């Protein structure tokens, strides 16, 4: 996402041609990113192709004495530029390089369509026949030598997940990089040529039904698929909570209490225990069980609450969440979820695959809104971003809701989610009906289930975490800083005094909760923390949790929305948000 890298990504190879660019091209879901992570090491960057919203990965591999740039070109089925990803793929290819065409060996016919289109470009090229180990289980025999002859380029069988064939692939790339590029294929009847090649090199045997086929059947038939989907999502949710809580309780809290607390306490003493700088950095002392102590959750200093919110509370959840999401992605479950939910999502004016940004947003709204870029039309992006910012609680917010309502019982937590879900569908329906644009239908490949690669999972997780730290962490610190400063001016008490009576009559909440909701604009999790000392009843906590979730997203989300949607759409979303929050608050006060 950084500009310099994006520029580097599209620059052509060195003038003398000594360090070629390696372009990984292939259909989606063929294990291209696993090949990418095998070829490259650390230092992978995710960039946007200039002027587009299509992202691609860029890394480097050892190449003779130096390092060659490796670009993971967006997955594409053809080169006819029928969608933004294809368009970008074409443009990257226009700049030249060595093509590594990653092909799914279990699905040769469809994959070779792209291969033949690539061969019309006359660039040096190697075909990686990936998922080679799978062909045996599936009774597929491929004559690799003959395929190579017919295509006129080297063909290397690989099983990237296991790391098999990668060395040969690298050798083949080096081989073609410095030799005469193969003659470009004449553009002709691709399908006819494809038919002859397949006939000659591929032999299919009858095969038995494997457990994987059974699982695939289960997950796509509506009768079994829908319960399976609910089960999968619940499992994912429970796993995220389990890992998140485990990291917090057994790693982060002990670290903070035993290692960081003495440092902060010493600093507090050095600063004299009071004063402007002290309150900014360390925060104020709170009284817990009669003792006057510093508390990471309540002291509100940059080095206490600021650090703890980021590393002690939010990061564990975000890490667990991205790990589980990456796993579901790499296994290949997400397209099935998109298929199952397509109908429901259409009612909200979205496509089935909008579930991916929405799922991401459950970790943190910021990457969720960034991921709406995968959606085709502007209108879909607006709807998805609005739905995310209004109704999808991020991991941090959920963690706080759990902490706050957990002691009162699970039913209250479910109530919060239930209310949010209702609001969400009402809002989505309204959004769909207010726009009469044509929503194109899906054409979506449902890939086979795949064994995930730990390497790729790790690479993806660390990239997403880096993004989270870059985008969200500075804002949390800024948030705590601003809250501190405003708090010192007494402005919050003013807000509470002015808005307080209204809170009571309209929503049945104590006046002080106005303060928490105002702070919620900066940081939701911090705001919910402010509700803790108010001694609210369970129902009041439910109400204020819902209100907090519905009103302004945190400032980081807001900044991203502004950047992605522009200020007119952001204002529209804000208006909707206010109306929805007000209406829901009134309705809750009336019903609950």
């Amino acid at each position, binding site marked *: 996402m950084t500009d310099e890298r994006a520029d580097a990504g599209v620059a052509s190879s060195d003038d003398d041609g000594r360090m070629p660019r390696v372009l990984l091209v292939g259909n989606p879901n063929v294990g291209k990113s696993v090949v990418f992570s095998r070829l490259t090491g650390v230092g992978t960057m995710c960039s946007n192709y200039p002027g587009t919203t299509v992202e691609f990965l860029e890394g480097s591999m050892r190449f003779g004495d130096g390092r060659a740039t490796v670009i993971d070109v967006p997955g594409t*089925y*053809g080169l*006819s530029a*029928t*969608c933004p990803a294809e368009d970008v793929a074409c443009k990257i290819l226009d700049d030249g390089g060595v093509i590594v065409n990653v092909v799914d060996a*279990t*699905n040769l*016919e*469809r994959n070779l*369509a*792209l291969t033949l289109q690539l061969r019309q470009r006359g660039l040096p090229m190697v075909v990686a026949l990936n998922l080679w180990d799978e062909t045996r289980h599936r009774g597929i025999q491929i004559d690799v030598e003959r395929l190579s002859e017919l295509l006129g380029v080297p063909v290397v069988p690989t099983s990237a997940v296991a790391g098999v064939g990668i060395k040969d692939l690298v050798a083949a790339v080096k081989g073609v990089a410095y030799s005469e590029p193969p003659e470009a294929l004449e553009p002709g009847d691709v*399908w006819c040529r494809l038919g002859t090649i397949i006939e000659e090199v591929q032999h*299919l045997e*009858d*095969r038995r*039904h494997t457990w994987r086929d059974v699982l*695939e059947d289960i997950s*796509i*038939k*509506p009768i079994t*698929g829908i319960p399976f989907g609910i089960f999968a999502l619940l499992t994912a949710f429970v796993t995220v909570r389990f890992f998140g809580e485990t990291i917090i309780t057994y790693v982060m809290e002990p670290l903070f209490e035993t290692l960081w607390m003495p440092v902060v306490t010493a600093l507090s003493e050095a600063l004299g225990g009071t004063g402007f700088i002290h309150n900014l950095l360390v925060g104020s002392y709170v009284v817990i069980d009669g003792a006057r102590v510093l508390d990471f959750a309540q002291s509100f200093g940059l080095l206490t609450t600021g650090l703890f919110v980021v590393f002690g509370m939010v990061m564990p959840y975000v890490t667990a969440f991205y790990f589980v999401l990456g796993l579901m992605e790499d296994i290949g479950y997400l*397209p099935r979820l*998109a*298929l*199952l939910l*397509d*109908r429901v999502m259409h009612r909200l004016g979205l496509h*089935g695959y909008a579930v991916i940004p929405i799922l991401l947003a459950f970790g943190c709204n910021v990457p969720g809104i960034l991921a709406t870029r995968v959606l085709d039309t502007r209108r879909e992006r607006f709807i998805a971003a609005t739905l995310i910012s209004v109704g999808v609680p991020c991991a941090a917010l959920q963690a706080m809701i759990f902490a706050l309502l957990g002691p009162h019982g699970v039913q209250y937590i479910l109530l919060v989610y239930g209310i949010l879900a209702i609001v969400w569908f009402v809002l989505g329906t309204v959004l769909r009906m207010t726009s009469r644009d044509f929503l*194109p*239908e*899906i*054409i*979506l*490949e*449902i*890939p*086979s289930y795949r064994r995930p690669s730990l390497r790729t999972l790790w690479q993806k997780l660390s990239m997403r975490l880096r993004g989270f730290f870059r985008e969200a962490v500075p804002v949390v610190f800024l948030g705590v800083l601003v809250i501190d400063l405003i708090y010192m001016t007494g402005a919050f008490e003013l807000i509470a005094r002015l808005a307080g009576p209204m809170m009571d009559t309209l929503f049945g909440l104590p006046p002080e909760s106005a303060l928490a909701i105002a702070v919620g604009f900066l940081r939701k999790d911090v705001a919910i923390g402010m509700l803790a000392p108010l001694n609210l009843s369970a129902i009041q906590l439910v109400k204020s949790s819902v209100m907090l979730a519905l009103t302004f997203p945190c400032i980081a989300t807001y900044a991203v929305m502004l950047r992605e949607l522009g200020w007119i759409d952001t204002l529209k979303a804000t208006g909707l948000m206010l109306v929805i929050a007000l209406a829901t608050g009134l309705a809750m006060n009336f019903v609950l």
Partner: protein
Amino acid sequence: MVQGSVLATLGDGERAVIESVQGGVQMQARLENMGLRPGKMVTRLSAMPSGGPIMVECGGTRVALGRGIAQHVSVRSVGASAATGTESNE
């Protein structure tokens, strides 16, 4: 069986040969690149309820298609053999 039917009206497990794809050049290109083109054998696997997408298998690829798109693909049905699990090539 029925001549001149479309992909959307096939039953679960029913096999058919694609005859033609009506619609824009872009949609044709997208379907072709997925392997759905005239002369190819497709098997309908399942359909989501209440007008949701249908899922077909074609040349080893599973593709989900919106019901409206599936209305635009003319097919000639060749019977319901795939439901029993035997796989043969066209």
